[in-house]
Protein backbone atom coordinates (compact mmCIF):
# COMPACT_ATOMS: atom_id res chain seq x y z
CA UNK A 1 0.00 0.00 0.00
CA UNK A 2 1.23 3.44 -0.97
CA UNK A 3 1.45 6.09 1.72
CA UNK A 4 -1.27 8.65 1.34
CA UNK A 5 -0.16 12.13 0.44
CA UNK A 6 -1.31 14.96 2.68
CA UNK A 7 -5.01 15.64 2.50
CA UNK A 8 -4.45 19.31 1.95
CA UNK A 9 -2.32 19.12 -1.14
CA UNK A 10 -4.70 16.63 -2.70
CA UNK A 11 -7.55 19.01 -2.26
CA UNK A 12 -5.59 21.82 -3.84
CA UNK A 13 -4.53 19.67 -6.73
CA UNK A 14 -8.00 18.37 -7.46
CA UNK A 15 -9.39 21.87 -7.28
CA UNK A 16 -6.93 23.06 -9.86
CA UNK A 17 -7.90 20.24 -12.15
CA UNK A 18 -11.58 20.57 -11.47
CA UNK A 19 -12.17 23.81 -13.25
CA UNK A 20 -9.63 23.66 -15.99
CA UNK A 21 -9.72 22.65 -19.61
CA UNK A 22 -6.72 20.98 -21.14
CA UNK A 23 -6.47 20.53 -24.89
CA UNK A 24 -3.74 18.22 -26.06
CA UNK A 25 -2.87 18.13 -29.78
CA UNK A 26 -6.49 18.38 -30.81
CA UNK A 27 -7.17 17.84 -34.48
CA UNK A 28 -10.41 17.67 -36.39
CA UNK A 29 -11.07 16.23 -39.81
CA UNK A 30 -14.70 16.29 -40.91
CA UNK A 31 -16.18 13.23 -42.62
CA UNK A 32 -15.98 15.06 -45.94
CA UNK A 33 -12.18 15.03 -45.55
CA UNK A 34 -11.79 18.70 -44.64
CA UNK A 35 -9.08 19.21 -42.03
CA UNK A 36 -10.27 22.08 -39.86
CA UNK A 37 -7.99 21.90 -36.82
CA UNK A 38 -4.46 20.63 -36.35
CA UNK A 39 -2.42 20.10 -33.18
CA UNK A 40 -4.22 22.61 -31.00
CA UNK A 41 -2.94 22.56 -27.44
CA UNK A 42 -3.63 24.99 -24.64
CA UNK A 43 -4.95 25.18 -21.12
CA UNK A 44 -7.63 27.28 -19.53
CA UNK A 45 -6.99 27.45 -15.79
CA UNK A 46 -9.49 28.49 -13.15
CA UNK A 47 -9.78 32.24 -12.98
CA UNK A 48 -8.28 32.67 -16.42
CA UNK A 49 -9.91 34.40 -19.32
CA UNK A 50 -8.47 33.09 -22.56
CA UNK A 51 -9.29 34.44 -26.00
CA UNK A 52 -8.90 32.87 -29.41
CA UNK A 53 -8.62 35.23 -32.36
CA UNK A 54 -8.41 34.12 -35.94
CA UNK A 55 -9.81 34.75 -39.39
CA UNK A 56 -13.33 33.57 -39.93
CA UNK A 57 -13.54 29.97 -41.03
CA UNK A 58 -10.35 28.98 -39.21
CA UNK A 59 -12.19 26.56 -36.95
CA UNK A 60 -12.87 28.60 -33.81
CA UNK A 61 -16.48 27.48 -33.51
CA UNK A 62 -15.47 23.92 -34.25
CA UNK A 63 -12.94 24.11 -31.44
CA UNK A 64 -15.54 25.36 -28.96
CA UNK A 65 -17.93 22.62 -30.03
CA UNK A 66 -15.20 20.09 -29.33
CA UNK A 67 -14.47 21.58 -25.90
CA UNK A 68 -18.17 21.56 -25.02
CA UNK A 69 -18.56 17.93 -26.05
CA UNK A 70 -20.90 18.62 -28.97
CA UNK A 71 -18.22 17.28 -31.31
CA UNK A 72 -15.60 14.59 -30.89
CA UNK A 73 -12.02 15.48 -31.78
CA UNK A 74 -10.51 13.31 -34.52
CA UNK A 75 -7.06 13.46 -32.90
CA UNK A 76 -5.83 14.40 -29.46
CA UNK A 77 -7.76 14.79 -26.25
CA UNK A 78 -9.79 17.34 -24.39
CA UNK A 79 -9.75 17.03 -20.64
CA UNK A 80 -12.24 18.96 -18.70
CA UNK A 81 -12.88 18.48 -15.05
CA UNK A 82 -15.89 20.63 -14.77
CA UNK A 83 -19.30 19.07 -14.26
CA UNK A 84 -20.86 21.67 -16.45
CA UNK A 85 -19.54 23.98 -19.15
CA UNK A 86 -21.55 27.05 -20.09
CA UNK A 87 -21.83 27.94 -23.75
CA UNK A 88 -22.83 31.35 -25.06
CA UNK A 89 -23.60 31.18 -28.76
CA UNK A 90 -23.07 33.87 -31.35
CA UNK A 91 -26.83 34.32 -31.63
CA UNK A 92 -28.73 34.81 -28.39
CA UNK A 93 -30.78 31.68 -29.27
CA UNK A 94 -33.70 32.78 -27.13
CA UNK A 95 -36.92 30.82 -27.47
CA UNK A 96 -39.32 33.43 -28.90
CA UNK A 97 -42.37 31.91 -27.18
CA UNK A 98 -40.83 32.37 -23.76
CA UNK A 99 -40.57 35.59 -21.80
CA UNK A 100 -37.23 36.83 -20.47
CA UNK A 101 -37.77 35.05 -17.14
CA UNK A 102 -38.95 31.85 -18.81
CA UNK A 103 -35.93 31.91 -21.12
CA UNK A 104 -33.49 32.45 -18.27
CA UNK A 105 -35.18 29.57 -16.43
CA UNK A 106 -34.79 27.11 -19.31
CA UNK A 107 -31.51 25.43 -18.35
CA UNK A 108 -32.55 24.97 -14.73
CA UNK A 109 -35.71 23.27 -16.04
CA UNK A 110 -33.69 21.00 -18.30
CA UNK A 111 -31.52 20.03 -15.36
CA UNK A 112 -34.54 19.21 -13.22
CA UNK A 113 -33.78 21.74 -10.52
CA UNK A 114 -36.77 22.05 -8.23
CA UNK A 115 -39.12 24.96 -8.62
CA UNK A 116 -38.21 27.10 -5.65
CA UNK A 117 -34.48 26.96 -6.25
CA UNK A 118 -35.11 27.55 -9.94
CA UNK A 119 -37.00 30.68 -9.10
CA UNK A 120 -34.18 32.02 -6.96
CA UNK A 121 -31.45 31.18 -9.50
CA UNK A 122 -33.48 32.82 -12.25
CA UNK A 123 -34.12 36.00 -10.28
CA UNK A 124 -30.44 36.26 -9.29
CA UNK A 125 -29.23 35.81 -12.84
CA UNK A 126 -31.67 38.39 -14.20
CA UNK A 127 -30.50 40.89 -11.63
CA UNK A 128 -26.87 40.10 -12.38
CA UNK A 129 -27.22 41.16 -16.02
CA UNK A 130 -29.33 44.19 -15.13
CA UNK A 131 -32.61 43.06 -16.64
CA UNK A 132 -34.80 43.40 -13.56
CA UNK A 133 -38.16 44.76 -14.64
CA UNK A 134 -38.01 43.05 -18.03
CA UNK A 135 -38.97 39.59 -16.75
CA UNK A 136 -42.23 39.45 -18.68
CA UNK A 137 -41.03 40.85 -21.98
CA UNK A 138 -40.98 38.62 -25.04
CA UNK A 139 -37.73 38.47 -27.06
CA UNK A 140 -39.30 40.19 -30.06
CA UNK A 141 -39.57 43.38 -27.99
CA UNK A 142 -35.91 43.38 -26.87
CA UNK A 143 -32.88 45.02 -28.48
CA UNK A 144 -29.90 42.96 -29.61
CA UNK A 145 -27.88 43.88 -26.54
CA UNK A 146 -30.69 42.94 -24.19
CA UNK A 147 -31.16 39.60 -25.92
CA UNK A 148 -27.47 38.90 -25.41
CA UNK A 149 -27.83 39.71 -21.72
CA UNK A 150 -30.71 37.26 -21.44
CA UNK A 151 -28.58 34.62 -23.09
CA UNK A 152 -25.79 35.34 -20.64
CA UNK A 153 -28.15 35.25 -17.66
CA UNK A 154 -29.55 31.91 -18.81
CA UNK A 155 -26.05 30.45 -18.83
CA UNK A 156 -25.19 31.93 -15.45
CA UNK A 157 -28.15 30.28 -13.68
CA UNK A 158 -26.21 27.02 -13.55
CA UNK A 159 -23.10 28.78 -12.19
CA UNK A 160 -20.75 27.04 -14.63
CA UNK A 161 -17.09 27.05 -13.58
CA UNK A 162 -16.12 27.42 -17.23
CA UNK A 163 -17.86 29.54 -19.86
CA UNK A 164 -17.35 29.30 -23.61
CA UNK A 165 -18.20 32.34 -25.72
CA UNK A 166 -18.53 32.12 -29.50
CA UNK A 167 -18.27 35.67 -30.83
CA UNK A 168 -21.16 36.71 -28.63
CA UNK A 169 -20.87 40.41 -29.41
CA UNK A 170 -20.01 40.08 -33.09
CA UNK A 171 -23.35 41.50 -34.22
CA UNK A 172 -23.61 44.57 -31.98
CA UNK A 173 -22.20 48.04 -32.62
CA UNK A 174 -18.85 49.06 -31.18
CA UNK A 175 -20.07 51.26 -28.34
CA UNK A 176 -22.43 48.59 -27.09
CA UNK A 177 -19.79 45.94 -27.56
CA UNK A 178 -17.36 47.87 -25.35
CA UNK A 179 -19.99 48.11 -22.67
CA UNK A 180 -20.92 44.44 -22.89
CA UNK A 181 -17.21 43.62 -22.69
CA UNK A 182 -16.93 45.55 -19.47
CA UNK A 183 -20.06 43.95 -18.04
CA UNK A 184 -18.90 40.48 -18.98
CA UNK A 185 -15.60 41.22 -17.34
CA UNK A 186 -17.22 42.26 -14.09
CA UNK A 187 -19.31 39.07 -14.18
CA UNK A 188 -16.10 37.13 -14.75
CA UNK A 189 -14.63 38.79 -11.68
CA UNK A 190 -17.69 38.47 -9.44
CA UNK A 191 -18.81 34.99 -10.50
CA UNK A 192 -15.32 33.56 -10.77
CA UNK A 193 -15.81 31.45 -13.88
CA UNK A 194 -12.99 30.75 -16.27
CA UNK A 195 -13.60 31.98 -19.81
CA UNK A 196 -12.72 30.75 -23.27
CA UNK A 197 -13.67 33.56 -25.59
CA UNK A 198 -13.72 33.40 -29.37
CA UNK A 199 -13.68 36.62 -31.32
CA UNK A 200 -12.29 38.23 -34.42
CA UNK A 201 -11.87 41.56 -32.66
CA UNK A 202 -8.34 42.10 -31.39
CA UNK A 203 -9.37 44.94 -29.07
CA UNK A 204 -12.02 42.79 -27.49
CA UNK A 205 -9.60 39.90 -27.03
CA UNK A 206 -6.85 42.00 -25.46
CA UNK A 207 -9.24 43.92 -23.24
CA UNK A 208 -10.94 40.87 -21.80
CA UNK A 209 -8.22 38.29 -21.55
CA UNK A 210 -5.30 37.21 -19.49
CA UNK A 211 -4.10 35.26 -22.50
CA UNK A 212 -4.71 35.57 -26.25
CA UNK A 213 -4.06 32.77 -28.73
CA UNK A 214 -3.86 33.66 -32.40
CA UNK A 215 -5.03 31.10 -34.91
CA UNK A 216 -4.28 30.68 -38.60
CA UNK A 217 -6.60 29.13 -41.12
CA UNK A 218 -6.71 25.85 -43.05
CA UNK A 219 -6.07 23.97 -40.99
CA UNK A 220 -6.71 26.00 -37.86
CA UNK A 221 -3.67 26.03 -35.62
CA UNK A 222 -2.35 28.27 -32.87
CA UNK A 223 0.52 30.32 -34.30
CA UNK A 224 1.22 32.67 -31.40
CA UNK A 225 0.18 33.28 -27.81
CA UNK A 226 0.28 36.50 -25.85
CA UNK A 227 0.15 37.06 -22.11
CA UNK A 228 -1.88 40.14 -21.30
CA UNK A 229 -0.41 41.62 -18.15
CA UNK A 230 -3.00 44.28 -17.22
CA UNK A 231 -4.58 44.05 -13.80
CA UNK A 232 -8.27 43.30 -13.42
CA UNK A 233 -10.63 45.08 -13.18
CA UNK A 234 -9.77 46.88 -16.39
CA UNK A 235 -11.22 50.28 -17.05
CA UNK A 236 -12.69 51.57 -20.26
CA UNK A 237 -9.75 53.94 -20.79
CA UNK A 238 -7.22 51.11 -20.83
CA UNK A 239 -8.03 50.59 -24.50
CA UNK A 240 -6.30 53.87 -25.33
CA UNK A 241 -3.14 53.39 -23.27
CA UNK A 242 0.07 53.02 -25.24
CA UNK A 243 0.82 49.59 -23.76
CA UNK A 244 -2.59 48.33 -24.82
CA UNK A 245 -2.21 49.75 -28.30
CA UNK A 246 1.26 48.31 -28.82
CA UNK A 247 0.12 44.90 -27.55
CA UNK A 248 -2.86 45.00 -29.91
CA UNK A 249 -0.50 45.93 -32.71
CA UNK A 250 1.68 42.86 -32.14
CA UNK A 251 -1.38 40.61 -32.09
CA UNK A 252 -2.58 42.24 -35.28
CA UNK A 253 0.77 41.75 -37.00
CA UNK A 254 0.76 38.03 -36.26
CA UNK A 255 -2.82 37.76 -37.42
CA UNK A 256 -2.12 39.56 -40.67
CA UNK A 257 0.99 37.52 -41.39
CA UNK A 258 -0.96 34.28 -41.05
Amino acid sequence: MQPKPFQESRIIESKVLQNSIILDDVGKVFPNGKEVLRDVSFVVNPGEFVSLVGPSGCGKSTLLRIVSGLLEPTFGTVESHSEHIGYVFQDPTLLPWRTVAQNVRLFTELHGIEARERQALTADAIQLVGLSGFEHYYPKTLSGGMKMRVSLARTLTLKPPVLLFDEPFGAVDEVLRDRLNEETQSLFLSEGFAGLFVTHSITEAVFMSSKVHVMSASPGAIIASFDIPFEYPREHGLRFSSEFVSLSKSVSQVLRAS
Partner: protein
Amino acid sequence: MTAQVDQLADKERLIDFKQLSRGRRLARLTLPPLVFGVCFLIVWYAIAYLVLDEKRRFLLSPLHEVLQVGFFDWDNFSRILKGLWWTGRVSLMGLLISIVIGCLLAMAMSQSKLVERAVFPYMVTLQAIPILAMVPLIGFWWGYGQFSRVIVCVVISLFPIVVNTLLGLQSAEPEMHDMFTLHNAGRLTRLQKLMFPAALPAMFAGFRISAGLSVVGAIVGDFFFGQGPAGLGQLLRRYVNNVQGEELLATIIVSSILGIVVFWSFGLLRKIVIGKWYEAA
Protein backbone atom coordinates in the same frame (compact mmCIF):
# COMPACT_ATOMS: atom_id res chain seq x y z
CA MET B 1 -48.63 28.21 -49.98
CA THR B 2 -47.70 29.21 -46.46
CA ALA B 3 -45.37 31.88 -47.67
CA GLN B 4 -48.09 33.41 -49.81
CA VAL B 5 -50.54 33.65 -46.96
CA ASP B 6 -47.92 35.15 -44.66
CA GLN B 7 -46.82 37.62 -47.29
CA LEU B 8 -50.37 38.87 -47.57
CA ALA B 9 -50.51 39.41 -43.83
CA ASP B 10 -47.17 41.21 -43.93
CA LYS B 11 -48.24 43.54 -46.69
CA GLU B 12 -51.13 44.69 -44.59
CA ARG B 13 -48.74 45.44 -41.80
CA LEU B 14 -46.15 47.15 -43.97
CA ILE B 15 -48.28 50.13 -44.81
CA ASP B 16 -47.55 52.53 -42.01
CA PHE B 17 -50.88 53.73 -40.72
CA LYS B 18 -49.48 55.23 -37.58
CA GLN B 19 -48.72 58.62 -39.05
CA LEU B 20 -52.27 59.20 -40.19
CA SER B 21 -55.08 60.56 -38.06
CA ARG B 22 -57.78 58.13 -36.94
CA GLY B 23 -60.38 59.28 -39.42
CA ARG B 24 -58.03 59.30 -42.35
CA ARG B 25 -56.68 55.96 -41.34
CA LEU B 26 -60.19 54.53 -41.29
CA ALA B 27 -60.92 56.10 -44.66
CA ARG B 28 -57.74 54.68 -46.13
CA LEU B 29 -58.63 51.26 -44.86
CA THR B 30 -62.26 51.19 -45.91
CA LEU B 31 -62.54 53.43 -48.92
CA PRO B 32 -60.67 51.45 -51.57
CA PRO B 33 -62.53 48.17 -50.96
CA LEU B 34 -65.79 50.13 -50.72
CA VAL B 35 -65.20 51.80 -54.05
CA PHE B 36 -64.25 48.50 -55.61
CA GLY B 37 -67.36 46.86 -54.17
CA VAL B 38 -69.59 49.56 -55.63
CA CYS B 39 -67.92 49.16 -59.03
CA PHE B 40 -68.51 45.44 -58.79
CA LEU B 41 -72.19 45.99 -58.07
CA ILE B 42 -72.50 48.43 -60.96
CA VAL B 43 -71.02 45.89 -63.35
CA TRP B 44 -73.34 43.22 -61.92
CA TYR B 45 -76.45 45.32 -62.46
CA ALA B 46 -75.24 46.50 -65.86
CA ILE B 47 -74.92 42.91 -67.00
CA ALA B 48 -78.27 41.92 -65.49
CA TYR B 49 -80.25 44.80 -67.02
CA LEU B 50 -78.28 46.01 -70.05
CA VAL B 51 -76.55 42.91 -71.40
CA LEU B 52 -79.15 40.27 -70.61
CA ASP B 53 -82.68 40.62 -71.88
CA GLU B 54 -85.54 39.58 -69.65
CA LYS B 55 -85.68 36.00 -70.88
CA ARG B 56 -82.04 35.43 -70.11
CA ARG B 57 -81.87 37.40 -66.87
CA PHE B 58 -81.98 34.13 -64.82
CA LEU B 59 -78.29 33.69 -65.76
CA LEU B 60 -77.37 36.60 -63.51
CA SER B 61 -80.16 37.89 -61.34
CA PRO B 62 -79.63 41.32 -59.78
CA LEU B 63 -78.52 41.29 -56.15
CA HIS B 64 -81.80 42.50 -54.63
CA GLU B 65 -83.66 39.62 -56.23
CA VAL B 66 -81.04 37.17 -55.00
CA LEU B 67 -81.55 38.56 -51.50
CA GLN B 68 -85.32 38.50 -51.83
CA VAL B 69 -85.59 34.94 -53.10
CA GLY B 70 -82.59 33.36 -51.43
CA PHE B 71 -82.48 35.09 -48.05
CA PHE B 72 -85.83 36.69 -47.26
CA ASP B 73 -87.94 33.76 -48.39
CA TRP B 74 -87.77 31.58 -45.29
CA ASP B 75 -88.51 28.34 -47.13
CA ASN B 76 -85.54 28.85 -49.42
CA PHE B 77 -83.30 30.34 -46.79
CA SER B 78 -83.94 27.58 -44.25
CA ARG B 79 -83.09 25.02 -46.92
CA ILE B 80 -79.80 26.79 -47.58
CA LEU B 81 -79.12 27.08 -43.85
CA LYS B 82 -79.69 23.34 -43.45
CA GLY B 83 -77.32 22.76 -46.33
CA LEU B 84 -74.81 25.00 -44.57
CA TRP B 85 -75.24 22.98 -41.38
CA TRP B 86 -74.57 19.64 -43.10
CA THR B 87 -71.67 20.92 -45.16
CA GLY B 88 -70.17 22.86 -42.27
CA ARG B 89 -70.37 19.78 -40.07
CA VAL B 90 -68.70 17.53 -42.62
CA SER B 91 -65.90 19.99 -43.35
CA LEU B 92 -65.23 20.58 -39.66
CA MET B 93 -65.12 16.88 -38.92
CA GLY B 94 -62.84 16.28 -41.90
CA LEU B 95 -60.60 19.12 -40.83
CA LEU B 96 -60.31 17.90 -37.24
CA ILE B 97 -59.45 14.39 -38.40
CA SER B 98 -56.88 15.86 -40.79
CA ILE B 99 -55.35 17.90 -38.01
CA VAL B 100 -55.04 14.89 -35.71
CA ILE B 101 -53.69 12.53 -38.38
CA GLY B 102 -51.56 15.22 -39.99
CA CYS B 103 -49.89 16.31 -36.77
CA LEU B 104 -49.24 12.74 -35.63
CA LEU B 105 -47.82 11.86 -39.03
CA ALA B 106 -45.60 14.94 -39.07
CA MET B 107 -44.43 14.22 -35.55
CA ALA B 108 -43.53 10.64 -36.49
CA MET B 109 -41.70 11.95 -39.55
CA SER B 110 -39.82 14.48 -37.46
CA GLN B 111 -38.69 11.80 -35.05
CA SER B 112 -37.41 9.38 -37.65
CA LYS B 113 -35.72 10.16 -40.94
CA LEU B 114 -36.71 6.68 -42.07
CA VAL B 115 -40.41 7.37 -41.59
CA GLU B 116 -39.99 10.73 -43.30
CA ARG B 117 -38.32 9.20 -46.32
CA ALA B 118 -40.93 6.46 -46.48
CA VAL B 119 -44.02 8.64 -46.17
CA PHE B 120 -43.09 11.98 -47.72
CA PRO B 121 -43.23 10.91 -51.41
CA TYR B 122 -46.78 9.66 -50.86
CA MET B 123 -47.79 12.93 -49.27
CA VAL B 124 -46.59 14.71 -52.39
CA THR B 125 -48.42 12.19 -54.58
CA LEU B 126 -51.60 12.62 -52.58
CA GLN B 127 -51.40 16.30 -53.30
CA ALA B 128 -50.76 15.75 -56.99
CA ILE B 129 -53.86 13.58 -57.48
CA PRO B 130 -56.72 15.71 -58.75
CA ILE B 131 -59.23 15.27 -55.96
CA LEU B 132 -62.15 15.02 -58.39
CA ALA B 133 -60.61 11.82 -59.73
CA MET B 134 -60.65 10.32 -56.24
CA VAL B 135 -64.19 11.26 -55.31
CA PRO B 136 -65.94 8.49 -57.32
CA LEU B 137 -63.58 5.90 -55.89
CA ILE B 138 -64.25 7.06 -52.35
CA GLY B 139 -67.99 6.76 -53.00
CA PHE B 140 -67.44 3.36 -54.62
CA TRP B 141 -65.67 2.10 -51.51
CA TRP B 142 -67.55 3.73 -48.67
CA GLY B 143 -70.92 4.55 -50.15
CA TYR B 144 -72.50 7.93 -50.70
CA GLY B 145 -73.10 8.82 -47.03
CA GLN B 146 -71.65 11.41 -44.68
CA PHE B 147 -68.64 9.21 -43.93
CA SER B 148 -67.43 9.35 -47.53
CA ARG B 149 -67.84 13.11 -47.57
CA VAL B 150 -65.61 13.34 -44.50
CA ILE B 151 -63.05 11.15 -46.24
CA VAL B 152 -63.02 13.50 -49.20
CA CYS B 153 -62.33 16.39 -46.83
CA VAL B 154 -59.51 14.51 -45.14
CA VAL B 155 -57.85 13.53 -48.41
CA ILE B 156 -57.98 17.07 -49.71
CA SER B 157 -56.88 18.84 -46.52
CA LEU B 158 -54.28 16.46 -45.08
CA PHE B 159 -51.26 17.42 -47.13
CA PRO B 160 -50.85 21.08 -46.14
CA ILE B 161 -51.10 20.13 -42.48
CA VAL B 162 -48.47 17.41 -42.73
CA VAL B 163 -46.06 19.50 -44.75
CA ASN B 164 -46.45 22.67 -42.69
CA THR B 165 -46.24 20.85 -39.38
CA LEU B 166 -43.18 18.92 -40.49
CA LEU B 167 -41.43 22.04 -41.76
CA GLY B 168 -42.41 23.76 -38.51
CA LEU B 169 -41.02 20.96 -36.36
CA GLN B 170 -37.78 21.16 -38.33
CA SER B 171 -37.62 24.94 -38.16
CA ALA B 172 -35.78 25.32 -34.83
CA GLU B 173 -32.24 26.57 -35.46
CA PRO B 174 -29.39 24.05 -35.18
CA GLU B 175 -27.88 26.16 -32.39
CA MET B 176 -31.05 25.79 -30.37
CA HIS B 177 -30.82 22.04 -30.81
CA ASP B 178 -27.17 22.20 -29.72
CA MET B 179 -28.29 24.08 -26.64
CA PHE B 180 -30.77 21.33 -25.76
CA THR B 181 -28.14 18.69 -26.47
CA LEU B 182 -25.67 20.41 -24.15
CA HIS B 183 -28.21 20.18 -21.37
CA ASN B 184 -28.96 16.51 -21.95
CA ALA B 185 -32.53 17.04 -23.13
CA GLY B 186 -34.30 13.82 -24.14
CA ARG B 187 -36.45 13.40 -27.25
CA LEU B 188 -39.68 14.19 -25.48
CA THR B 189 -38.33 17.31 -23.76
CA ARG B 190 -36.88 18.50 -27.03
CA LEU B 191 -40.17 17.93 -28.82
CA GLN B 192 -42.23 19.55 -26.10
CA LYS B 193 -40.03 22.53 -25.26
CA LEU B 194 -38.37 23.25 -28.59
CA MET B 195 -39.75 21.63 -31.72
CA PHE B 196 -43.46 21.85 -31.02
CA PRO B 197 -43.62 25.52 -29.98
CA ALA B 198 -41.31 26.38 -32.88
CA ALA B 199 -43.74 24.61 -35.21
CA LEU B 200 -46.84 26.51 -34.12
CA PRO B 201 -46.68 29.40 -36.63
CA ALA B 202 -46.25 27.05 -39.56
CA MET B 203 -48.93 24.72 -38.18
CA PHE B 204 -51.46 27.51 -38.02
CA ALA B 205 -50.63 28.53 -41.57
CA GLY B 206 -51.28 24.92 -42.58
CA PHE B 207 -54.54 24.73 -40.62
CA ARG B 208 -55.85 27.81 -42.29
CA ILE B 209 -55.14 26.55 -45.79
CA SER B 210 -56.60 23.16 -44.94
CA ALA B 211 -59.72 24.68 -43.43
CA GLY B 212 -60.51 26.29 -46.77
CA LEU B 213 -59.73 23.09 -48.64
CA SER B 214 -61.91 21.09 -46.29
CA VAL B 215 -64.90 23.30 -47.11
CA VAL B 216 -64.19 22.72 -50.79
CA GLY B 217 -64.00 18.98 -50.15
CA ALA B 218 -67.32 18.93 -48.30
CA ILE B 219 -69.10 20.79 -51.10
CA VAL B 220 -67.51 18.70 -53.86
CA GLY B 221 -68.33 15.45 -52.04
CA ASP B 222 -71.92 16.48 -51.47
CA PHE B 223 -72.25 17.70 -55.05
CA PHE B 224 -70.96 14.44 -56.44
CA PHE B 225 -72.57 11.92 -54.10
CA GLY B 226 -75.93 13.68 -54.26
CA GLN B 227 -77.63 11.54 -51.63
CA GLY B 228 -78.70 11.94 -48.02
CA PRO B 229 -79.57 15.23 -46.36
CA ALA B 230 -78.89 18.04 -48.81
CA GLY B 231 -75.71 20.00 -48.18
CA LEU B 232 -74.58 23.02 -50.15
CA GLY B 233 -73.22 20.83 -52.96
CA GLN B 234 -76.55 19.14 -53.58
CA LEU B 235 -78.34 22.47 -53.46
CA LEU B 236 -75.96 23.94 -56.04
CA ARG B 237 -76.67 21.05 -58.36
CA ARG B 238 -80.41 21.16 -57.81
CA TYR B 239 -80.63 24.91 -58.44
CA VAL B 240 -78.62 24.57 -61.64
CA ASN B 241 -80.83 21.74 -62.85
CA ASN B 242 -84.02 23.64 -62.00
CA VAL B 243 -82.71 26.90 -63.44
CA GLN B 244 -83.19 28.68 -60.07
CA GLY B 245 -80.64 31.45 -60.61
CA GLU B 246 -81.46 33.46 -57.48
CA GLU B 247 -81.23 30.46 -55.15
CA LEU B 248 -78.04 29.36 -56.91
CA LEU B 249 -76.35 32.70 -56.31
CA ALA B 250 -77.61 32.79 -52.72
CA THR B 251 -76.08 29.34 -52.10
CA ILE B 252 -72.81 30.47 -53.64
CA ILE B 253 -72.80 33.52 -51.35
CA VAL B 254 -73.43 31.34 -48.29
CA SER B 255 -70.69 28.92 -49.36
CA SER B 256 -68.27 31.83 -49.69
CA ILE B 257 -69.23 33.12 -46.27
CA LEU B 258 -68.56 29.68 -44.81
CA GLY B 259 -65.13 29.64 -46.41
CA ILE B 260 -64.33 33.14 -45.20
CA VAL B 261 -65.53 32.50 -41.65
CA VAL B 262 -63.46 29.33 -41.41
CA PHE B 263 -60.39 31.13 -42.76
CA TRP B 264 -60.88 34.03 -40.37
CA SER B 265 -61.49 31.93 -37.31
CA PHE B 266 -58.20 30.15 -37.84
CA GLY B 267 -56.50 33.48 -38.25
CA LEU B 268 -58.07 34.56 -34.97
CA LEU B 269 -57.11 31.33 -33.21
CA ARG B 270 -53.55 31.79 -34.42
CA LYS B 271 -53.50 35.32 -33.10
CA ILE B 272 -54.78 34.18 -29.71
CA VAL B 273 -52.31 31.32 -29.39
CA ILE B 274 -49.10 32.77 -30.81
CA GLY B 275 -49.82 36.46 -31.39
CA LYS B 276 -48.11 37.48 -28.17
CA TRP B 277 -44.70 36.24 -29.15
CA TYR B 278 -44.72 35.56 -32.85
CA GLU B 279 -43.19 38.10 -35.13
CA ALA B 280 -43.64 37.45 -38.84
CA ALA B 281 -40.13 37.76 -40.20
